[in-house]
């Protein structure tokens, strides 16, 4: 049996998960309150001969109460979501490690900057389906699609971002430890969508640097796809 959210390995993951547990508690209370009341009324007020129904059209006071109370609770949920949302989507870190993602049906093409840290020149290098990043720095992923919509989903990092042709989207995250996890394509991208699987490897800095030096000594890249 397998329950619950996957483990969390991103620095902001706890904020995301906290919202889940908050909403779970609030909706859980509402769920039990409504279902128990419903079952209780069905048993309690089942038709009995000679017992007429109560003739009432309701009460304005109670309508006002059950309008305002849910509205307040919901607005609080929205405000709390907004705080985490702004952090995840708007607070882009200074001095991140940047990679570019150029997915196509049905693979993840990943572009890394050369030693100059800039994209679009001859020292860029690429990998397919294996995203390697150094541990200890925030990561920014800039993405644009070569063909149809895809979605970059890292379940353990609580990251999901659609990738579109003709425009660039970006996300950031910071791993809390080294390790290997899966990249899932979460947007239907064609008949082979189910097998569009990639991996993210978060490497210790020294190991990442060594891999990068080996890679840079390798053959140069094909030219960048024109936008």
């Amino acid at each position, binding site marked *: 049996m397998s329950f619950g959210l996957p483990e969390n390995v991103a620095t902001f993951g706890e904020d995301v998960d906290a919202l889940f547990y908050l909403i779970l508690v609030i909706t859980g209370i509402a*769920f039990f309150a409504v279902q128990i009341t419903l079952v209780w009324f069905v048993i309690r007020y089942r038709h009995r001969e000679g017992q007429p129904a109560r003739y009432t059209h309701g009460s304005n006071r109670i309508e006002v109460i059950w309008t305002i109370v849910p509205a307040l609770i919901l607005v609080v949920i929205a405000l709390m979501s907004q705080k985490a949302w702004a952090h995840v989507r708007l607070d882009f870190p200074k001095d991140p490690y940047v990679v570019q993602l150029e997915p196509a049906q049905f693979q993840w093409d990943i572009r890394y900057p050369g030693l100059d840290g800039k994209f679009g020149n001859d020292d860029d290098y690429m990998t397919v389906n294996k995203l390697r990043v150094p541990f200890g720095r925030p990561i920014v992923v800039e993405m644009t699609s070569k063909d149809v919509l895809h979605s970059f989903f890292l379940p353990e990092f609580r990251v999901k971002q659609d990738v579109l042709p003709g425009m660039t989207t970006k996300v950031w995250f910071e791993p809390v430890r080294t390790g290997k996890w899966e990249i899932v394509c979460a947007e239907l991208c064609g008949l082979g969508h189910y097998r569009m699987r990639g991996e993210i490897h978060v490497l210790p800095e020294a190991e990442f640097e060594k891999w990068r030096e080996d890679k840079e000594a390798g053959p140069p890249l094909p030219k960048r796809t024109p936008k």
Partner: protein
Amino acid sequence: MTTEAHAAHAETHGGHHHEMGFIRKYIFSQDHKIIGIQFMLMSLVFILLGGGLALALRWQLAWPGGEYGPEYAKPVPILGKLLWSNTGGSMPKEAFPMFTTMHGTIMIFFVIIPLLVGAFGNFTVPLMIGAKDMAFPLLNMLSFWFALPAGIIMLLSFFQEGGAAAAGWTAYPTLSGPATWRGEPTGLSGGGQSYWLVSLIILGTSSIMGAINYLTTIINMRAPGMGFFRMPLTVWSIFITSILVLFATPVLASALGMLLFDRVGGTSFFLAGPKFPGASGQPLLWQHLFWFYSHPAVYIMILPAMGVVSDVLSTFSRKPIFGYKSMVFAIAGIAGLGYIVWGHHMFQSGMNPLLGTTFMVSTVLIAVPSAIKTFNWLGTLWGGSLHLTTPMLNALAFVSMFTIGGLSGVFMASTTFDIFIHDTYFIVAHLHYVLFGGSLFGIFAGIYYWYPKMFGRMMSERLGKLHFWLTFISYNLVFFPMHIIGLGGHPRRVSSIMEYDLFKPLQHWNVFMTYAALVLGAVQLIFAWNFIASWFLGKKADRNPWHGNTLEWTTPSPAPHGNFEVTPIVHRGPYEYHAPGSGRDGINPQTEPGKGAALAAH
């Protein structure tokens, strides 16, 4: 039944007494009741197809193929032999997107919407407001005869080269884009996608015809005394749904037209990227236009069911609806807010995150009128005298299941947590709790409730209750675990999660849900038998088998052409059960004059 001073208004329908031939009467009929039944029969045929596709999908999810181990290889029954003998009878994974696409498309556009709006709307509106027929009978006939060809075109798309549409029921470009661009093949969707677009444009036209008709009929043709606030909530819900249809569908039709031009006309409204050199369109534009229709469409698919359930709950609780006016305002509130929440489908789409905040706020607010409705339904039961008939059981299930669907929506309204559950099985669970647990139980309630008025016979209560309980239990066993695997990250529209190490531990749920789905599918045969056999063998129904107050119960069962022997005069609201002076079992028909203190109540 005398009509006192208003006798002058009472007309008999002498002009309608000439006999019509079979074709005019049952095929190209202009009678709203026949057209309603036509819509219902069409949708019930389509539900078999949509359900069959769902079972094939479930089979594939449970047993995705021998490459993952011998226990994952099981040929699909029937279809495997017919279609996929070269893969040993299991569904090719490439067929899966087509099946999900067509399952969603058929269930939404050819089952739920035509059943609620086409069938219930047509059948009930004139009867419940005391009109002879719809305002535009010819237009009404055309709306059905646009819907049926649309359905046939949708079915023909299966036989196109490359098969039917496979880009999801949402048809996001550029996946739904043209197969060739400036002479170069793109490897994208084949002709089936164009058929899909043409079919939905025709169906949209049918919807608009219907909406105009309902609005005109409700505004102009209410019987004397039938004020707006004496209308049953079923009529209110169809009225407000028609406004949604009228203003949202043209946007969808435009988007469908633009995408069709992109596919066959060389335009690039929605195309961009290296695959389409020279194109400077915007794939996100489609999502905005599509969801501007399709989110209100979610309410088109639930509001009429809410109306039906309200009527059924009141009748079988023998009690007025609790908070009638706030129920009306809640329907209007849902419809109004429904226009400004579409962006919550696009939180992760690349839309500006600040817009995400705006849509989150409007989305959580729409939970408020939904909560009001739920509380008022509970208030209606409170102190009632509940008759647990088959329609009542289905209506109670609606309240219970819609509550789950509504609450799970809050998780996704939160932009932040939506990052994780967007496009996972959590949304699949949510939408099925609303559309099956909600709409479909509402539809079952409505069919059992009005069947006697449609066909003059009762459906079997014993089979009805058996069908209800088996459906209710197996339904929850299929769909509740989807919340759990969704929280595990299980993506939707993926034919085999065995590709991913993370999701392999969830696979046993897929097997479990598939067994439950097979039971759920099988027990619908009880309903089919009950529906068909009762037509011939059911107990004869009298005018008012459920002791209802509303106008349709004053006519013979089945109601004749022209509906009413005399134009009814309405004296009170629809739900005045057990008002002082009411009849046996609290009955207090809208048409009976001078009875009960309730005259002043509305």
